[in-house]
């Protein structure tokens, strides 16, 4: 009998490799308490039914019970810095117009002319007033009615009953969030204690250095789940295994957000050999995992890649952070901290710089939009944000070389994402219980689905889901 016949659950359902907390014990710098947090929440071992990824019914449920009531990222504040600046945020079949008003506050409205229903603005940009391009109904930036052509012909239209329909807009970390539910809790309340995870690396003090918008042939949840666990590294990104503790990462679920921490400079426990420190450096620098010992000389002797790489990170950040760079511990400079704020916002911690947003592509439940922001720290005057670079369905992230090594990583993920969507249709026919997620490494994904089920009012298994509908 092998472990494939019967897994000993008393082993604790954690990798045999060195744990993140044990690696923290070796850090050369003081470790902030937030990295010592472990949620240790058991989120179940049940399968997750496939319908939610492939059925139109679930998409319609999301339109009724999720998107209209949940806080969701609309844009960065820096994208609307001046009075009159606007940003169009579309979610499924609803269009939202985010506006910087004359007094500098940010407001959001349904992006629709109350006259005949045309979208008020087709895209963002600066506007002195919000004027419909069709017949010219016009509103002030604060949403109040400003002008009605042929006023005599509209006796029922008055200033007090024809203001733009407002949507709640609140900010966090330099991001503008909207919520269409007037009864929803505040954004701050929804985010809970998340600030403790970002206070050492404030996201407000960043600018959009890169912004890509990739269209994918997969449900938005299929797409985002490809970026919520490190388990796929062994098959999808094997080249980084010598320097990545793939299955030794830590996963934590909190109230409305979750966190994963994947280590760099710690070899995968799945290897049958032990990489040298220089070989780990070579992998991380993407210069090749040398066939012969040509990696020698990449690193000074007498230290580890983790310690040496962290110091390089401090040196790189010092021009921006000053002496504060020296307070960052090795982990903050070497490891990946990827958060998920329910349902679709994925800011990375420390100075990882990455932030994702996933959402349906229009009203299509089998297509989605993956956005990647690279948020760089800066000194002096805030640089202008990068314009979005749209990457079509038939293009790949290799068409966005501004992403650097991320383009290579995403190119590998792109091989899976549409094929998961395709395969799920077959899985629905042969395995009614659905997809089988890991108990620990899918902690973030299980946390998402538990919240998702609460919002949609559906059960965990296929039978319960039928009852919920």
């Amino acid at each position: 009998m092998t472990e494939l016949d019967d897994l000993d659950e008393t082993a604790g359902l954690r990798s045999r490799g060195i744990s993140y907390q044990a690696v923290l014990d070796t850090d050369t710098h003081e470790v902030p308490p937030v990295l010592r947090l472990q949620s240790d929440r058991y989120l179940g071992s049940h399968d997750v039914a496939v319908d939610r990824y492939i059925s139109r019914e679930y998409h319609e449920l999301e339109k009724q019970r999720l998107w209209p009531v949940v806080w969701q990222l609309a844009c960065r504040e820096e994208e609307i810095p001046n009075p009159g600046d606007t940003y169009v945020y579309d979610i499924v079949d609803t269009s939202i117009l985010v506006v910087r008003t004359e007094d500098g506050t940010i407001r959001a409205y349904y992006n629709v002319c109350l006259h005949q229903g045309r979208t008020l603005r087709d895209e963002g940009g600066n506007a002195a007033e919000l004027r419909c391009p069709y017949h010219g109904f016009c509103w002030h930036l604060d949403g109040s009615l400003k002008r009605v052509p042929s006023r005599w012909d509209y006796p029922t239209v008055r200033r007090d009953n024809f203001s733009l329909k407002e949507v709640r807009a609140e900010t966090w970390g330099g991001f503008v969030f909207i919520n269409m539910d007037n009864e929803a809790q505040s954004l701050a309340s929804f985010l809970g204690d998340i600030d403790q995870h970002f206070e050492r690396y404030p996201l407000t003090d960043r600018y959009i250095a890169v912004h890509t918008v990739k269209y994918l042939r997969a449900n938005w949840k299929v797409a985002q789940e490809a970026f919520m666990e490190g388990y796929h590294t062994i098959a999808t990104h094997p080249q980084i295994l010598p320097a990545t503790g793939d299955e030794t990462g830590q996963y934590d679920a909190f109230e409305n957000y979750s966190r994963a921490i994947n280590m760099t400079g710690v070899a995968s426990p799945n290897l049958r050999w032990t990489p040298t420190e220089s070989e780990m450096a070579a992998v991380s620098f993407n210069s090749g995992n040398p066939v012969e010992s040509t990696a020698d000389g990449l690193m000074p002797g007498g230290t580890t890649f983790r310690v040496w790489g962290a110091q390089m990170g401090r040196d790189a950040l010092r021009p921006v952070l000053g002496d504060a760079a020296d307070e960052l511990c090795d982990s903050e400079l070497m490891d990946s901290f990827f958060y998920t704020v329910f349902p679709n916002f994925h800011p990375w911690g420390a100075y990882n710089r990455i932030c994702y947003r996933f959402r349906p592509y229009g009203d299509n439940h089998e297509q989605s939009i993956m956005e990647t922001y690279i948020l760089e720290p800066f000194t002096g005057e805030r640089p202008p944000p990068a314009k979005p670079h749209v990457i079509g369905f038939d293009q790949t992230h290799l068409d966005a070389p501004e992403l650097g090594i991320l383009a290579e990583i995403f190119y590998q993920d792109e091989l899976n994402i549409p094929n998961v969507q395709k395969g799920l249709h077959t899985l629905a026919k042969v395995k009614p219980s659905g997809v089988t997620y890991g108990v620990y490494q899918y902690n973030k994904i299980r946390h998402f689905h538990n919240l998702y089920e609460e919002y949609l009012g559906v059960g965990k298994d296929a039978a319960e889901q039928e009852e919920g509908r």
Partner: protein
Amino acid sequence: MAHTIRHPLTRNRVYSVENDGRVRVQADNTDETGDRWGHFDNSGRWLGGELLHADPQMCRHMFAHWQLTQADVKGGADD
């Protein structure tokens, strides 16, 4: 240095890229199959050679790195 990687999990397979973007996989003589090689495309589809199988994601990585490096070189030349 040419981008050459020994597969971290299948250590007797060495991946590199030809000038035209084909991925070359060399099976070195550390196993009984002897010294063989094969060419594969950017998703691991076999193109030629005695070696018939390759890791598609490693091919993906090798091709991606090659293409972005080509873009860098071209961009530099355009500058």
